[in-house]
């Protein structure tokens, strides 16, 4: 399978803190890649280097390469708004805007200049269907998004991300604030999403990584310790530290 994102010797510093150390990885297209590791290991930080959301944090310095479809993400010529349109992101806790359900999904279209009512209507419906929430909200699109349950809000956030038609979807522990049933719905959604998108997901939950991801990367103290097919990582880890982590000896 083709590589969607390649990082080479990626280093990231928060001021003097060295948060990512020489991370080199090849993320496959149309796969779910799970990033696991204990808190503070750099997995979320790594995720945010892929759409340059770290740029919003003062004092961050990045060296090395991130290639998206063979184009360097960290160069001056890059328009971060276009990058983030192509590499969407779903956050840890659901964060819909305080607007109607419809406007939440249409927001991304409007900021990218798509305003024609018929087109917006169509994409909003398609995105809500894509995020498996259409049937639950189709009769109340004008209601505030904040009236939805947490699990519905998170699927709405996924729909909002789908609406701008990204290639890659980054998910930062998308189910950690949700109940088990909502979590299950989003996990089911993930296997649908990978048909059309490349999904990279940070998860705290190793069972979740084992269930949904095709590839798994294990981070520890800012290093990528091991990366491979999920079945291999969980059944025959090559590195002792990976084995210790997945067998629950620390973390």
């Amino acid at each position, binding site marked *: 399978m083709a590589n969607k994102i390649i990082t080479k010797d990626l280093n990231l510093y928060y001021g003097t803190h060295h948060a990512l150390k020489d991370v080199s990885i090849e993320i496959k297209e149309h796969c779910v890649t799970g990033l696991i590791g204990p808190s503070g290991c750099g997995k979320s930080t790594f995720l945010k280097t892929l759409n340059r959301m770290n740029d919003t944090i003062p004092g961050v310095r990045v060296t090395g390469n991130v290639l998206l479809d063979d184009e360097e993400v960290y160069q001056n010529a890059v328009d971060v708004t276009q990058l983030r349109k192509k590499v969407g992101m779903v956050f840890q806790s659901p964060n819909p*805007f305080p607007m109607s359900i419809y406007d939440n999904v249409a927001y991304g279209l409007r900021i990218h200049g798509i305003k024609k009512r018929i087109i917006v209507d169509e994409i909003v419906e398609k995105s809500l269907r894509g995020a498996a929430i259409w049937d639950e909200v189709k009769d109340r699109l004008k209601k505030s998004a904040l009236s939805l349950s947490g699990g519905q809000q998170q699927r709405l956030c996924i729909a909002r991300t789908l609406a701008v038609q990204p290639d890659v979807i980054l998910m930062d522990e998308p189910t950690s604030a949700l109940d088990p049933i909502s979590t299950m719905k989003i996990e089911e959604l993930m296997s649908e999403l990978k048909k059309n998108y490349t999904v990279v997901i940070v998860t705290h939950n190793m069972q979740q990584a084992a269930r949904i991801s095709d590839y798994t990367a294990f981070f520890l103290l800012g290093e990528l310790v091991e990366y491979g097919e999920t079945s291999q990582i969980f059944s025959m880890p090559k590195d002792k530290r990976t084995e210790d982590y997945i067998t629950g000896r620390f973390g």
Partner: protein
Amino acid sequence: MKDHSILRSARTKSAVELVMHILFIVCGLLAVIAVLFISIYMIASGGPAIAKIGVFKFLFGQIWNPEAGQFGILPFILSSIVATALSILIAVPIGVGAAIFLTYMAGKKTGGIFLFIVELLASIPSVVYGLLGAMLVAPMIFKLQTMLSLPQSGSLLSATIVLVIMILPTIISVSASSLQAVPKTYNDASLALGSSKIQSIFKVLLPAAKSGIIAGIVLGVGRAIGETMAVMMVAGNAAMMPTLLGPVRLLTVGISLEWAYSSGLHREALYGIGLVLFVFIMIINIVLNIILKKGGKKA
């Protein structure tokens, strides 16, 4: 042994508690009584004059000439409304812009210094604003008036400019704190969808802070409509219908200017102006409360 009894101190302690309890109730009641008293007093003292002059003649009469027994305060009302509306119209974009700068663009240090200066601006006594207005703003308007071959005088425009400067701190600090209360996650979500910083501010963050900003505006209105001293020093104070470059007398000035030498119906009419002003401010406060409650429900 007796010193350690659990019974000994109970009585004195509960007495202290009781006294404090009553003390706080009295403190609370004082404020309520003050408001009640003022309301009753304003209605009782302003009402009869309005009744004597006639509600319509008083509120919509265009001529204020106490010597001739003419007590029309429409020029005052309109001047107050126009001066307040104009100053709000100018101060809101500037104030909200400054709040955006303060919240999203200034760093911690710059922002801190900026906020300190803004708060300083709010604490300057209004007579000082009046002095500055009379020395700096009014002369500039004089030049404009000369250019347009109008008589040199205090004017609505001068009063408006002084009011703008006076209400800016209120609008800046209330808007900034409501912008700061908008969850950072909204901004993250917007940026992650590929919006620019400016798009994010105008399409997500400002709408999310809307109710707080409106509260700031209403507070500004209250401040502008109640301001007396600074306005009196630059507005020219002639009891005329408002024109931008002509002299105007606001409701507040209408009272204070003639207070010292008024008597009889004239003095009663000044109470009447006070009642009108009081009602204006009541309405503004009620509107403010409704807006704040609505905002609270949404969040």
